[in-house]
């Protein structure tokens, strides 16, 4: 019995070792495509397809396809879920696409499947996934850390650099939201001695739901009368919280900021409940990801200052100490003055 078990283990190990999946380091220059450009097929995999954010991203994808004539498309999972996103990528690999651009729900969960893609010679570009190992490049409009810091700087400005604040994420399981919030909290600790994180509720989750953001904010302000600021991450947090602030009569006494889309926040920016939200245009992010994939398929070498031909993404710089993560010019701060200029 024992011997047989050992045999089985041994066989499994042999097979296991025969499949190289991980910790391979790939040279992007080896991904130059031999096919003519007209036969290239590039897929962009968003977190999900219903969020206004990714609907906007698809605009960029379609624009790119039109501009270049390359077969580029967006294909997302039906729900924001790491396991389902991995399935979509599995299928794309099986179809033989030439490049996959992905906005990971959870970078860790995609390592194996993206490793598989790379091993099959498929170009993998990440966006909003700076911690991803199995990709050729990760392009960011900013660094996660930088965005967190900037949200905090904006919030501190509103709060007069003093008072109690807390952080709000789309889901406590959302990786990038947590990274931004962590960075923001760390920054506040270092730079704003008079600002304190609400110890009892340091991270509130809104279940990716505007109405929940509103309800949680109301509860927070009731329970913690000295709460002065909410550091939002999800694009649903500022409109939800702003509505609560307005209704509770806390305008001018409590503040919120987060990543946000112009249209969702227009009303509150104009009436002063919100002072600013942060944004990088997902359309441009989509466009830039595809441009990056094309550069690699063409065999171009990626260096500091490379141009991804989308506004704000024209001069990419490697993140300090990284040869993988490229950062763009950054985000746009939306205020009541420029909110009308976006058209989305």
């Amino acid at each position, binding site marked *: 019995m024992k011997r047989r078990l050992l045999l089985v283990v041994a066989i499994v*190990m042999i097979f296991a070792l025969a499949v190289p999946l*991980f910790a391979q380091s790939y040279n992007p220059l080896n991904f130059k495509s031999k096919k003519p450009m007209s036969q290239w097929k590039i897929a962009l995999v968003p977190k999900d397809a219903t969020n206004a954010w990714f609907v906007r991203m698809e605009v960029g994808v379609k624009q790119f396809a039109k501009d270049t004539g390359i077969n580029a498309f967006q294909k997302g999972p039906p729900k924001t879920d790491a396991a389902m996103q991995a*399935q*979509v990528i*599995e299928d794309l*690999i*099986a*179809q033989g696409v030439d490049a996959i651009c992905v906005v990971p729900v959870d970078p860790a969960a995609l390592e194996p499947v993206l490793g598989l893609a790379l091993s099959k010679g498929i170009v993998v570009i990440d966006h909003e996934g700076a911690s991803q190992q199995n990709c050729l490049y990760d392009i960011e409009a900013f660094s996660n850390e930088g965005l967190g810091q900037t949200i905090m700087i904006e919030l501190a400005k509103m709060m007069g650099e003093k008072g109690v604040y807390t952080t709000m994420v789309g889901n406590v399981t959302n990786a990038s939201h947590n990274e931004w919030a962590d960075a923001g909290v760390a920054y506040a600790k270092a730079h704003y001695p008079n600002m304190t994180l609400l110890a009892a509720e340091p991270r509130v989750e809104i279940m990716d739901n505007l109405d929940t953001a509103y309800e949680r904010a109301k509860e927070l302000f009731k329970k913690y009368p000295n709460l002065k600021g909410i550091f939002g991450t999800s694009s649903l947090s500022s409109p939800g919280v702003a509505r609560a602030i307005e209704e509770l009569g806390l305008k001018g006494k409590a503040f919120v900021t987060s990543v946000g889309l112009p249209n969702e926040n227009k009303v509150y920016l104009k009436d002063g409940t919100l002072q600013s939200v942060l944004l990088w245009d997902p359309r441009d992010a989509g466009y830039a990801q595809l441009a990056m994939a094309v550069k690699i398929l063409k065999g171009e070498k990626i260096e500091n200052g490379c141009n991804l031909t989308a506004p704000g993404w024209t001069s990419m710089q490697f993140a300090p100490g990284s040869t993988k993560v490229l950062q763009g010019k950054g985000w746009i701060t939306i205020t009541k003055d420029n909110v009308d200029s976006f058209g989305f």
Partner: protein
Amino acid sequence: MTTTKTAATVRGVRSARDPNLLRLLVMLVFVFVLMTVLRPNQFATIASFNSMMRQFPEYGIMSIGISLAMITGGIDLGVVGTANLSAIVAAKFLIGTVPRGAPPAQVVPYLIIAVLLSLSVGLACGTIAGTLISRFNIPAILATLGTQQLFTGIAIGITNGRPQSGLPLLYSRIGNTEFFRFVPLSFMIFFIVAVSVGIMLSRTRFGTFMYMMGTNPRAARYAGLNNTSIILRTYMISGLLSSVAGLIMMARANSAKADYGAPYTLQCVLIAVLGGIDPNGGFGTIGGVTMAILILQFLSSGLNMFNNISNFYRDVIWGGVLILVLVFNKLLSWREERRAVRKSMN
């Protein structure tokens, strides 16, 4: 008189049970042929089969768990929560104990412990759900809705919602093994699970007890069946299967997290129902469920080959197919029933 009556019903019974499998098979072939014709260079390829075989085992195994609960007249909405909780426990153990850079031979015992740990968490979760249903008489749908929240909640609580990554490399290496570079280990596990559960249902005493209790728990009691223990064991098996699915997900994602695969719950219920499991209990086979799993995977992977068709059409087709099958089954059974009922009426 009796002879003619029963002869007619024999036909009725046979055609009422097998045709559902037959219809599922027809549908499966139809989807397959359709996709093959529409995407000849992509769908019926080795790469695409390989990809599909890596995708469905995790939710397939959970569907089997839900199917078992449904056969006994219940439902288990807690499968995904159980899967993630047990995977997280295993992941936490591995991350916390395996020394960095340890050679594979040294890691193996840890892996075995982690797997056992995860399976026992699955069993424990199943035991909790089973106890609530069998001992406290809470309707299964509510009890497992509660345990789903509870298990996911505990998973979030002990991880603060963060993914547990940094597993020893060996785990996903083994987990992602492909025999002959084609058949993934997860598929083999699914195959073993499906076959053994199928055998359990059709060939063992316990399987018969499940069907009988699902048909009429009161009569089961009077026939000397221990309903409490049957329910308990059913949910324990479902919990165990969930933890197997959790281990597969953990290998596929090389990490564990509280909400991986959250949308699978509803999908699994739909699979079970399309696969012919009677939501009122007592009927249904693993063969049917397996075919429903394959239909869903064909549809899903097939649709991913159409760049301009949203993945949501899968839901439309799925819902539509489910309803059409029901309507079709109904119309046929009406025809049979009208004959049978009229005869038994006097």
